[in-house]
């Protein structure tokens, strides 16, 4: 469904990503973990064509997108949805209009049909009846949920989540995790989730990829990542001070 081949990305001579090879299969949820500034969000933006790689190819549903024009990219993007780190709701529109936006732009549905979908999606994310509220009246968690309702409105095949639980309390993080899993179950979407919340990552992932210093250093199932012998991976998932702290801990346990 999504395939990155030998992707490198540089900004102003600074290498953000180097030699990334990654594949996400249809219906799979891949969680990308890694420290802040490691290039996780850049990876997501490359997948949706918001950025073009310095080198390499990005394949979405069998189509190479890194050389497409904006108009041709839009044809690919119609099948994709994205939840942004800070929600990116259109602040001049109501919650209902935000959720209805994609449907009004890309479908020939009647207003009554659109309103039905808006109501259903808002109910699904626990915000029933909030159509007329403006985004600035919502909390961070509510904005994330509206963003999710907006993204799934056009029933995308691919969902991308950029730090969906960042800045949320554990209860709200759990709610968002459940919504991501629900979206996968109900809509059978292929998902890529960027996060550094390990509890979320292990709960929702089919596979986890760890990115560090612009390179993917480990890819595997949740269990494989938990059992990884790579000190950098263990440092990250256990929240240790340094990789050597893990090496010391392991030798002590032996």
């Amino acid at each position: 469904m999504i395939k990155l081949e030998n992707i490198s990305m540089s900004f102003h001579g600074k290498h953000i990503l180097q030699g990334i090879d990654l594949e996400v299969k249809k219906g799979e949820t891949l969680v990308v973990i890694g420290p802040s500034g490691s290039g996780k969000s850049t990876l997501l933006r490359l997948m949706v064509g918001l950025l073009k790689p310095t080198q390499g190819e990005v394949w979405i549903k069998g189509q190479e997108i890194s050389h497409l024009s904006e108009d041709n990219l839009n044809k690919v993007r119609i099948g994709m949805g994205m939840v942004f780190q800070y929600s990116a709701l259109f602040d001049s529109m109501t919650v209902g209009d935000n959720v209805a936006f994609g449907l009004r732009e890309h479908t020939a549905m009647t207003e009554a049909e659109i309103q039905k979908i808006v109501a259903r999606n808002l109910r699904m994310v626990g915000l029933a009846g909030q159509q007329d509220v403006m985004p600035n009246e919502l909390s961070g968690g509510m904005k994330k949920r509206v963003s999710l309702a907006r993204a799934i409105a056009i029933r995308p095949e691919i969902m991308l989540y950029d730090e969906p639980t960042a800045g949320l309390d554990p209860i709200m993080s759990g709610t968002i995790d459940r919504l991501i899993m629900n979206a996968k179950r109900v809509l059978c979407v292929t998902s890529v989730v960027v996060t550094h919340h390990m509890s979320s990552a292990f709960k929702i992932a089919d596979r986890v990829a760890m990115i560090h210093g612009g390179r993917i250093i480990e890819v595997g199932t949740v269990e494989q990542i938990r059992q990884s012998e790579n000190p950098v991976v263990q440092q990250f998932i256990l929240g240790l001070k340094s990789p050597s702290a893990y090496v010391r801990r392991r030798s002590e346990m032996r």
Partner: protein
Amino acid sequence: MLLAIVESIGRQVILWMENSGRIIILVGNTLFHLREKPRMNHVLHQMAHLGVDSLPIVLLTILFTGMVITLQTATEFIKYGAQSSVGGVVAIAMARELAPVLTGVVVAGRVGAAITAEIGSMKVTEQIDALRVMAINPIKYLVVPRLLACVIMVPILVIFADVIGTVGGYLVATLYAGISSFTYIHSITLFTVVNDIIGGLVKAMFFGGIIAIIGCYKGLTTGEGAEGVGRATTASVVSSIILIFISNYFLSLVLYR
């Protein structure tokens, strides 16, 4: 020391050329999307927001400009017994230069700043990225309606400005300078031709285009955070006003040969 100065000038020239190139690309892309049917509800919304709401401030500015120009002109002309020319001179100055340029400046300050601030804050809060992810072309969705609104509304504002400026002049000429109502109006009909007004409206269309394109460009290229939006908004107003004054000279050269 000298090398540093040359380097600094070189950097500025490259930056200027880079920006000019990007603006030309934006103009090209916007014109390309003009071939498609525009979203009329967006255009009308922008026309109301950017145009109609600017009317009071434009009228106020031009009213007093017309009044002060007449005050100065009448005082001097009367000294030389040329009071029969005051109405015509004021009307020509108003139609050809003052109404389009001052309306352009006022709209650049009010509308150009608003366009940049709105698009700039959309950029820093990732709303432009959200549009792109939702397969919406930001140029078609944001730039085209604003360009059309400005190109249509600035000339309309100038028509109102022409009228109110001349009325302001009439009031000062008749009530303060003692020029008769007939002399003032007769002078206008004698001196002014339709091309004076049409030329002013053509200028106004150009100025509207400049305000919309620069406003959108500065918004779309806003730097990070609230500070970035503030800086972009200031740059938008300053650049638009400078471009209005420069282009006004060349437009006058072409239109009133």
